[in-house]
């Protein structure tokens, strides 16, 4: 009797988890199946999860249409460069905050902390004017700079936490051997905090790859668009051609899913360093 009860309880739990899982996944399945139906100008009804005339036409069309490849390269350039700048600059600053005592340390740190809480969207107006003033409107390097700036304080906090947990003995030994601080930073701190660096890189890259509002506001030149903008406008232009829109979306999702499925443990690690501390 008790065994039966336990079995029932267990199957209820799995049933709930499965139903929830289906709700999570089913929108994506409809996205994929819509993308697989070619030349769909009118919406199919009833919607089919397993289309009979499936083909990759939409994917080929999307990949070749409207500068899509250029947008893909733009996005890759912006996301990769901004991630590099974010990681290098924030690691350097985090090292200073974790290992040195100096005048003004608290004030500078506090400034980073306070501005981090301000939602970036409210800065969009003055940033727009600033970009215009600096001649960085319609410039991908401009986008890189502003992306790095928005994520730098969060990264400093994460990395400072990592650096503080590292044992000091190695650095002290290196100092005695006559190594400079820059050598210590590149040869000891960075390699030892590789998991932290990975986490910051992943989160930055994904945020930059998806960023919409700034790219929408600062970039007018069609040749300089990034993927999120291109896809949103693509939908505007191609109205009911959802197959094409979703094929383009799925191509844009490839890098994100590749990173997510190959580096999953860093997601959990990265999220929880912030939230859970015993």
């Amino acid at each position, binding site marked *: 009797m008790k065994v039966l009860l336990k079995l029932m309880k267990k199957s209820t739990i799995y049933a709930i988890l499965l139903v929830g899982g289906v709700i999570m996944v089913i929108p994506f399945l409809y996205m994929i199946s819509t993308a697989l139906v070619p030349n769909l100008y009118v919406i199919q009804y009833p919607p089919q999860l397993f289309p009979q005339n499936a083909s990759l036409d939409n994917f080929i069309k999307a990949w070749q249409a409207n500068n899509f490849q250029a947008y893909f390269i733009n996005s890759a350039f912006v996301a990769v460069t901004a991630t590099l700048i974010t990681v290098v600059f924030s690691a350097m600053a985090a090292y200073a905050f974790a290992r040195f005592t100096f005048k003004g340390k608290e004030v500078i740190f506090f400034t980073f902390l306070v501005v981090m809480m301000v939602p970036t969207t409210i800065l969009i*107006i003055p940033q727009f004017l600033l970009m215009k003033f600096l001649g960085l409107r319609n410039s991908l390097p401009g986008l890189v700079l502003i992306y790095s700036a928005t994520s730098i304080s969060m990264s400093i*906090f994460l990395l400072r936490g990592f650096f503080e947990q590292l044992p000091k003995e190695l650095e002290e030994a290196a100092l005695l051997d006559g190594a400079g601080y820059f050598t210590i930073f590149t040869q000891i701190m960075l390699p030892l905090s590789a998991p932290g660096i990975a986490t910051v890189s992943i989160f930055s890259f994904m945020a930059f790859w998806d960023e919409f509002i700034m790219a929408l506001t600062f970039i007018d030149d069609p040749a300089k668009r990034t993927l999120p903008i291109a896809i949103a406008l693509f939908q505007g232009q191609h109205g009911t051609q959802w197959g094409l829109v979703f094929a383009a979306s799925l191509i844009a999702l490839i890098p994100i899913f590749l990173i997510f499925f190959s580096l999953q443990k860093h997601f959990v690690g990265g999220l929880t360093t912030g939230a859970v501390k015993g």
Partner: protein
Amino acid sequence: MKMSMRTQKKLIPYLFILPAFILFCVFMVYPLIKGLQISFYNWSVMPNNPSTFVGWDNYTRAFTDKIVGVAFKNTITYVLITVPGQMILAMLLAVLIHSVTKGKVFFRTIYYIPVVTSWVIVSLLFRYLFQSPHGVINYFLVDLFHLTKEAVPFLQQANTAMIPIMGLGIWKGIGWSMIIYLAALSTIPHELSEAAAIDGANAWQRFWKITLPLVSPTVLFTLVMLLIGGFNVFISVYLITNGGPMQQTEVYLSYLYHQTFGYLDFGYGAALSFMLAFLIVAASGLQMKFLRRPQELM
């Protein structure tokens, strides 16, 4: 002339901070101050038209603006529904996943997929799913489960257009809180629950009296992060309804965006920005107060 070792050592931390600090000051701190200034001006976008100082006018105007009222109400509704929605469902899932032995990683992954998918793409996807009369959701409602007689024109009427937007907010966000709760649950020693079970506490009591108090700092952390995220809702509204029909689904940020870049009313937009910033910083301050050690945030 060579600097002494001591001066050199004093300079080093500043050199390490400098690149980040310059970038941060130019693109974050300066715009913050500049934005505050703009909010007190009738800001002119034309270079030969001077901007005029208007004092608090832009701020007082917000209080009499009917659409600000609508947008604020919609934002609050969004927050009040999606934040508890995400937290309760995420906690339920986390407790369930934590209790099973097989398939932990599988379920964790499934629920996390929407979190990593870009807002732009899932917003378009939800717009597609909630179409009427021939959208997928309407197919479920009318033909599959016979819940409604006719297709619901979700996006065409003001009182239903927020449904896809809030649904998306919950669907996309659950995984994030869930992962964090799972991590917190794994730090609770088994012995506590077991001892309580022996004393006759049922699962529900054990959850309320033992588990929840122990993970409450984590719950508070997610609460504040979700509040901030909720007040910042924008992309989904912009792409699903664009504030329509008749500006009735406008949320705070979408209205701000339309005012600023649609009507080029930068001064008013900046004032609206700072009013929202004030709310959000207040919410963050609340967390500081509850969590005695602010470093727990990081």
